[in-house]
């Protein structure tokens, strides 16, 4: 194997931070090489150095043996480096072909759109990246948009492809499709650098993996030799508990009773059809399902964010079907929303302000419309100590915190209200291994304190490791409720595609 791209002792400092501090990496021709590391380990900085967005303080990048210096992405693109950013660099209002050829369009003065579409079609056939060249990008799913990004790089004759956290925005199916695209690219001789913090994905796709921690490359090893536990320990730098230890649940009274619930989405399409289940005190009820099968609408309806079309909702024996969101909050329902930056926090507010976001109308935080900062600050300080939020400074803005710490702030705020029911939607999405461990421990602690927890997640592993009972939702219907201890991935996977519980059990126990 010959090396295609080499990074030697790369160093990049920012004021106060050594973002990259002696990074070494060798990418062979025809391999998928993964860079694994927690958020903040320096993966993004490394990518930006390779892509010419930053210039290194010292060290060297070699392409096919020759040292290269990129002053801008343009230089990198010209040298054959293709990059798919985590946040897509696409123009939604333009077509697929427009986006792909932009900057290197066919034609003289006039733009030959038909020719652009033809070129894109040829390219997508060659690399098996099927996409309609004349479709507007805004009409495409996220998975297809990612294909457009890959095609964009290939159109510019990329000799290596860098994928920065490519699966963060994808559904499990789209992830599978991406993997087969990556394998095909590899077979076409295009090496792929795959940045991720997800262990299972790295193990599924990579030939070799380089682990980064605190700005340094810790180790490079063939994927066959690495166990998940070993990789996790390398990433975090200590022993990590991958699967949380969990005692048997001790369910108490029924907290939430959902009966024949029917919910429409904002476009009035029926999304939840006659769903019934109960959650008891001291148990975690997990909802598994493929994204878009009604989970969002179901929890939004329970939280009071979407109107209930039919059925009943009882909370502690009381009918809350028609109560407003605020009344439900008051009754004891807490909510950790899916998008923590959009719905969970006000990023431009301080931690103190975010901590009292739901309670600022109450004493002691305000009286007669006047806010009192001191009690709010004391309260916020208590919360961030209790949940180990870092940095421990209530005057910092929520936007300054890492994703894991942002999630801790939300969790702290919601839990400190002493709710009877906590709804957590995708509570660990986008978090790294260490932070996930922390959030999982908190959820289990709350369960053991006797709270009822409704957990919605697209990660089957998360559902399996936390839930005491698992409800599987498929096109708006609860197709099965299974006990957490005996559930298997295969059984849930089948249920998620709409196979009935009886069939699924039969298939998986055979």
């Amino acid at each position, binding site marked *: 194997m010959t090396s295609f791209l080499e990074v030697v002792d790369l160093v990049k400092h920012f004021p106060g931070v050594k973002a990259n501090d002696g990074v070494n990496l060798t990418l062979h021709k025809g391999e998928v090489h993964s860079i694994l590391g927690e958020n903040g380990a320096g993966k993004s900085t490394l990518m930006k150095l390779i892509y010419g967005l930053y210039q290194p303080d010292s060290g060297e990048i070699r392409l096919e043996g020759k040292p290269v210096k990129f002053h801008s992405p343009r230089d990198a693109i010209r040298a054959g480096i293709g990059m798919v950013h985590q946040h897509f*660099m696409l123009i*939604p*209002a*333009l077509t697929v072909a427009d986006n792909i050829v932009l900057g290197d369009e066919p034609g003289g003065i006039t*733009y030959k759109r038909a020719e652009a579409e033809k070129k894109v079609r040829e390219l997508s056939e060659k690399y098996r990246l099927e996409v309609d060249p004349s479709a507007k990008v805004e009409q495409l799913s996220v998975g297809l948009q990612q294909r457009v990004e890959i095609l964009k790089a290939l159109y510019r004759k990329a000799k290596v492809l860098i994928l920065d956290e490519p699966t963060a925005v994808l559904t499990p199916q789209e992830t599978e499709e991406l993997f087969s695209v990556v394998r095909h690219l590899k077979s076409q001789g295009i090496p792929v650098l795959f940045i991720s913090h997800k262990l299972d994905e790295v193990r599924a796709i990579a030939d070799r993996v380089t682990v980064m921690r605190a700005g340094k490359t810790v180790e490079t090893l063939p994927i066959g030799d690495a166990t998940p536990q070993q990789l996790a320990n390398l990433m975090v730098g200590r022993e990590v508990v991958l699967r949380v230890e969990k005692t048997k649940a001790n369910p108490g009274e029924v907290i939430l009773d959902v009966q024949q619930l029917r919910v429409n989405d904002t476009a009035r399409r029926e999304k939840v059809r006659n769903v019934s289940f109960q959650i008891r005190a001291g148990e975690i009820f997990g909802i598994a399902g493929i994204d878009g099968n009604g989970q969002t609408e179901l929890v939004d309806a329970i939280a009071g964010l979407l109107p209930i079309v039919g059925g009943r909702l009882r909370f502690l024996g009381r009918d809350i079907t028609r109560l407003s969101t605020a009344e439900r909050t008051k009754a004891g329902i807490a909510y950790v929303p899916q998008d923590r930056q959009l719905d969970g926090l006000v990023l431009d507010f301080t931690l103190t302000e975010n901590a009292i976001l739901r309670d600022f109308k109450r004493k002691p935080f305000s009286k007669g419309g006047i806010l009192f900062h001191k009690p709010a600050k004391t309260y916020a300080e208590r919360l961030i100590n209790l949940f180990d939020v870092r940095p421990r400074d209530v005057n910092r803005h929520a936007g300054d915190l890492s994703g894991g710490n942002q999630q801790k702030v939300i969790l702290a705020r919601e839990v400190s209200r002493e709710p009877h029911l906590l709804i957590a939607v995708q509570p660990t999405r986008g978090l790294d291994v260490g932070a996930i461990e922390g959030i999982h421990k908190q959820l289990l602690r709350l369960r053991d304190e006797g709270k009822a927890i409704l957990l919605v997640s697209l990660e089957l592993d998360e559902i399996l490791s936390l839930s005491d009972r698992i409800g599987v939702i498929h096109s708006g219907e609860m197709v099965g409720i299974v006990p957490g201890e005996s559930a298997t991935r295969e059984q849930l996977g089948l249920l998620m595609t709409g196979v009935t519980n009886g069939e699924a059990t039969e298939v998986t126990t055979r």
Partner: protein
Amino acid sequence: MNILTNAQLWASTLAMAVPLALPAIGGTFSERTGVVNIAMEGIMLMGAFFGVAFSYWTGSAWVGLLCGLIMGGLLSAVFAWAAIRLAADQVVLGMAINIFAAGLTAFLLDTIFGFGGTPPQTPQLPTLSIPVLSSIPFIGAFFTNQSVLVYVMLVIVVLSHWFLFHTRIGLRMRSVGENPLAADTAGLNVWRLRYAGVIIGGVLSALGGVYLSLGILNSFDVNMTNGRGYIALAAMIFGKWTPLGSFAASLLFGFATALGIALQNHGISANLLGMLPYLLTILALAGLVGRSKAPAADGIPYNPQR
């Protein structure tokens, strides 16, 4: 309702649409590259004043036209520099340009030409009848004794559409107004494309001003644009940020103006009718005639460091 069958009404609709369509298309160019431009009013005034001034000094309306365009282009270059390079708030900036231009042109009119205003012997741009077309019944009125700039505008409408939607540079300009970061990483020069959009827009707006002062009349009055730059803004939005749409919307506003003038002879209050185009503007801006979507990066300065 025999007013509506009067060909003269329709011909005057077209004439009234010119000083709206030109700045509306100008605004389209600017906003398609991502710079919100409400300075059309001020730039029109600059074009109008310097068009007349240079026409008088040089004795040639054509030289006047050229100088009007240059002055409009210069003022919009200043606007572009502050908006793009200094990342100033584009709405505040546009407003400042409008007030500045109104004051400057009023001041220069007084100091240069005195109380009498611009001299009556200032050369005017010629009117033109198109030989064959003007002899067609009814339709002929559109092509009879119209200012030469009416025909220029028709060409500009078609040319602008082609330029924005069928040329490589048009695609690049639009991409810069939608997602400058994506355009930058694709190797485009965001700032240069934005300068081009704003300055083309300024020249077209100035042409609208020159039409008012040298096309219809041969004089300049204080604040003679009378809010047309703002109506053009409405026409641009109404026309969904496209040259053809802007033109169509300008025709509608032009019709409202022409109808107002025609109805004056029928004993309806001129003031009341004068409100008609502005009423349409409010309706258009309130989105009552269908929502239109601005370019995604419209009004957001591009700073590649972020």
